[in-house]
């Protein structure tokens, strides 16, 4: 068994060495693939707060991913077409500034998560899975029917949004932005999972009765976790939209919700680097097997099956053994 910290360092090394190699050898597509993995990992780090620590199986995190995507799409669309978003009661204009778009994406997804969480957390188990799915589907069909922003066709953004001092159209620079954000999100996740809040959230997953009996409000703890979770996934959505320079209802689809869960399960539920490993494996399979066949998901399914049957802690569980109870 390899020490989990060493394994995590190894993962960080991959995310530094591969893009560096691609940059030196002028392989921008590889950098784009790695960026895709980083953004997916970020989305899954978000879900890992709710699912991994809190045991809340949200099958509707695409709602937040899409919300972040559309926040970027709508702001940038108005900026590139020089039309205001609204004129009354006050003038609200679009923007091409990444930091502003991120803040808007985080705020809107957090609000959406607050609303969805407040309603969904009244249920548990399979009902929670279904109701979060239902909310995401509502967002999906809403985006399809909102023709002002492309409806089913989605929105194309011609030029990537800007970040002060950087040329975001240069793949390696955009990769670095995404990588730094992912690193920051992982840092936050580590802190949160060891904090008093994380301890209570984690205990509520194992025994709700216990947490209530010591006088803590499990519902409120879960709701806060759900909001944080949605906000991080929303930020990933904004980055994903910027990576593709395109937003469409697909970002709200249930397949996407499922994929975010799959990243976590492949990597290891509740493990700090679980989402990172899962997203990297997913993007690698998508790329290499996708070249062989359109039906590459069969192999993904096989992998998932093997991991669920034989390695309860995902790939990290197989390599590093059981999670230590605390650091």
């Amino acid at each position, binding site marked *: 068994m390899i020490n989990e910290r060493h394994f995590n360092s190894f993962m960080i090394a991959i995310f530094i060495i591969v893009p560096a190699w691609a940059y030196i050898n002028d392989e921008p597509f590889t950098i784009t693939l790695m960026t895709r993995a980083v953004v997916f990992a970020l989305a899954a780090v978000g879900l890992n707060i709710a699912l991994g620590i809190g045991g809340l199986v949200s099958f509707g995190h695409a709602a937040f991913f899409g919300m972040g995507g559309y926040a970027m799409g709508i702001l940038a669309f108005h900026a590139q077409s020089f039309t205001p978003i609204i004129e009354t009661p006050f003038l609200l204009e679009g923007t091409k500034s990444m930091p502003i778009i991120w803040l808007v994406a985080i705020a809107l997804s957090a609000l959406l998560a607050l609303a969805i969480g407040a309603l969904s957390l009244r249920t548990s188990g399979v009902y929670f899975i279904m109701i979060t799915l239902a909310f995401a589907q509502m967002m999906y069909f809403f985006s399809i029917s909102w023709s002002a922003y492309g409806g089913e066709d989605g929105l194309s953004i011609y030029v990537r949004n800007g970040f002060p001092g950087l040329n975001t159209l240069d793949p390696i620079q955009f990769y670095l932005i995404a990588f730094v954000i992912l690193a920051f999100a992982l840092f936050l996740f580590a*802190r*949160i999972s*060891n*904090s*008093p*809040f*994380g*301890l*209570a959230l*984690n*205990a509520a997953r*194992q*025994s709700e*009765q*216990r*947490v*209530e*009996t*010591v*006088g*803590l*409000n499990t519902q409120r*703890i879960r709701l*806060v976790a759900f909001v944080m979770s949605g906000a991080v996934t929303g930020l990933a959505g904004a980055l994903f939209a910027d990576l593709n320079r395109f937003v469409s209802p697909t970002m709200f689809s249930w397949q996407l919700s499922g994929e975010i869960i799959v990243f976590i399960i492949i990597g290891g539920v509740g493990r700090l680097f679980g989402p990172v490993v899962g997203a990297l494996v997913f993007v690698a399979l998508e790329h290499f097997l996708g070249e062989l066949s359109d039906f590459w998901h069969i192999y993904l399914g096989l992998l998932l099956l093997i991991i669920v049957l034989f390695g309860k802690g995902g790939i990290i569980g197989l390599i590093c053994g059981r*999670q230590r*109870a*605390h650091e």
Partner: protein
Amino acid sequence: MNDIVLQTRGLTKAFGSLVACDDVSLSLNRGEIHAVIGPNGAGKSTLIAQICGGLKPDTGHVEFLGQNIEGLNTRQRALAGLGRTFQVSALAMEDTVLQNAILGALGSSGNTWRFFKNAMKDTDLRERAEHALKRVGLDDSLEMRTAELSHGQRRQLEVAIALTLNPKTFVMDEPMAGLGSEGSRKLTGLLDGLREEAPILLVEHDMDAVFALADRISVLVYGKIIATGTVDQIRNNAAVREAYLGEED
């Protein structure tokens, strides 16, 4: 009668035609252990659930420190000072012993909304958790996973968590259940010392423990209290012998 800490008044709870709790009035005084005994299905768990807030009585109410607490839920009753232990251990099994105790300390500190500080390095939480664990004799297994504890140790941990809350009364649901004689003896010693700190309402099956510990005993049969009294009074009560103790002899 200022000595009464916990009082139930006419608690009645029916599930369909089964009356699980029938006009139960009992009191718990400062400094005492009041045991509730009764055969299986006598309604002991229903009684506890009503006291701790899991079940709402059809009629009657619970008074705690002179206040009617019918309006409070489980969590609020815990905050008010009802320290409960469970018949089937309700613990965070994947976490360590220390983490479970820190969770208790966290509950009474009331400040869960800290997202950055490491809970295990918070000296205040840690001191209170370790102090409680020391009192129950678990201070040498702090880093053990709760799932690896023996049955008896889990019972001790339950009591330790209740201790971290500085409760004004303990409500213990069959703490001796499933313990061997050695574990039972140890826990009896522990509970014996607790009564001065906070009175204990002890729902228990283990007669040796009850007779060794209790200041007063109430006997619950088919949801009704058929007798309340000291150990000797209960031992010599004809109705109790017939309903309950006779079965064991």
